[in-house]
């Protein structure tokens, strides 16, 4: 996969890779001539497809561990995408109410994953089991996330 700055007719250089933790991936590329930076944002399915090949966008920095893919992705009988249970038996991942999901859907897709993680982390840190629009408002005010 290569990126071309059409204006400069220059191959862009890989910058950095971010994994927000919601299945999406962000990778930046910079034009060495004009300095323009673009970000490639993949949705969870696209990210999964690349992961399923056992390769990493941006290159590997360390060799693959034995059974890395199997140990990472096989669910060993637990429900897919489940989170570890805490001592009180509650899962660590808060539930999103329908209203909150609708509101989240209105967030621009290229930052939606990061925004979702911010709200989820906020809820988990405070032991909140369900994220509602009210919780989102509170978090937005406390964290200074106006516009999200």
């Amino acid at each position, binding site marked *: *996969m*290569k990126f071309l700055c059409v204006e400069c007719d220059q191959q862009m250089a890989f910058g950095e890779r971010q994994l927000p933790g919601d299945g999406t991936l962000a990778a930046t590329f910079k034009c060495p001539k004009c300095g323009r930076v673009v970000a490639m944002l993949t949705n*969870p399915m696209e990210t999964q497809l690349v*992961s*399923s090949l056992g390769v990493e966008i941006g290159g590997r920095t360390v060799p693959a561990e034995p*059974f890395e*893919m199997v140990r990472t*992705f096989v669910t060993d*009988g637990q429900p897919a995408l489940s989170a570890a249970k805490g001592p009180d038996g509650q899962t660590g991942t808060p539930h999103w109410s329908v209203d909150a999901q609708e509101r989240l859907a209105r967030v621009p897709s290229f930052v939606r994953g990061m925004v979702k993680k911010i709200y989820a982390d906020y809820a988990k840190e405070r032991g909140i089991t369900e994220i509602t629009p009210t919780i989102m408002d509170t978090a937005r005010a406390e964290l200074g996330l106006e516009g999200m």
Partner: protein
Amino acid sequence: MRTYHQLTDPDRSGLADQIGAQRKRVAERLAGVRRIVAVMSGKGGVGKSYVTAHLARGLARGGRTVGVLDADLNGPTIPGLLQVPHTAQPPAIGLDGVKCISMGHFLDAGAPLAFRGPTAESFVWRGAMEASALREFLGDVEWGSLDILVLDLPPGMQRYIELCDILGNPPPVLTVTIPTPESRDAVRRAMRAAVERGSELLGIVENMVGGELKGSAGDELAQEFATPVLARIPWHPTDVVWDQVALLMSHAPHTTHHAP
């Protein structure tokens, strides 16, 4: 606007190099394996895993170091057939000292194979996940020195094709059928695909012979593909039968065939 191949700077991700490293890892790991045999059949329920496990045990009793790779990721049965503890780390040591790797090592008892990931349109990536799991089974197990590695393939041809791609060379195949015409027809397709890919046919094992299942699939396929029927396995075979099968398999001629 220039195209991909006109951009001469290397791709920083080096995806092709990463794939190449995966292949190299498999080749290095299998360097200590003298012989690889894929047990296959186009038909389900003919006893591939049963034949694989007992063939492996027969070979081991004959003094060979044997490993079994359970490539049936969705229905792993080798750990049970070799009586390997569920918690054993691969390669686990089973009956008669046969080593094995299976998806069963990574799943809770009775749990279906499931991958973490987006559930919508999961068919897009699930096949690639399974192929990667097979690659890791081939490249990450420290077999040590093996006289023979027996691969237990699931019904159908998908895993065989993945195996050919990962190994770089089509493995010799041992075909399992039951006597029925239905099995003959399904197995014929698999054998043709194997021949077209360039696999050597080591022979045919006709399983479940002498009972209610009627037909002569073994003989018909043997004649059609010019390959021997190595064994006809009765219901409730003894170890003696399997030892004979192992001996025959060890001496099976390697020939190159052309699809009929």
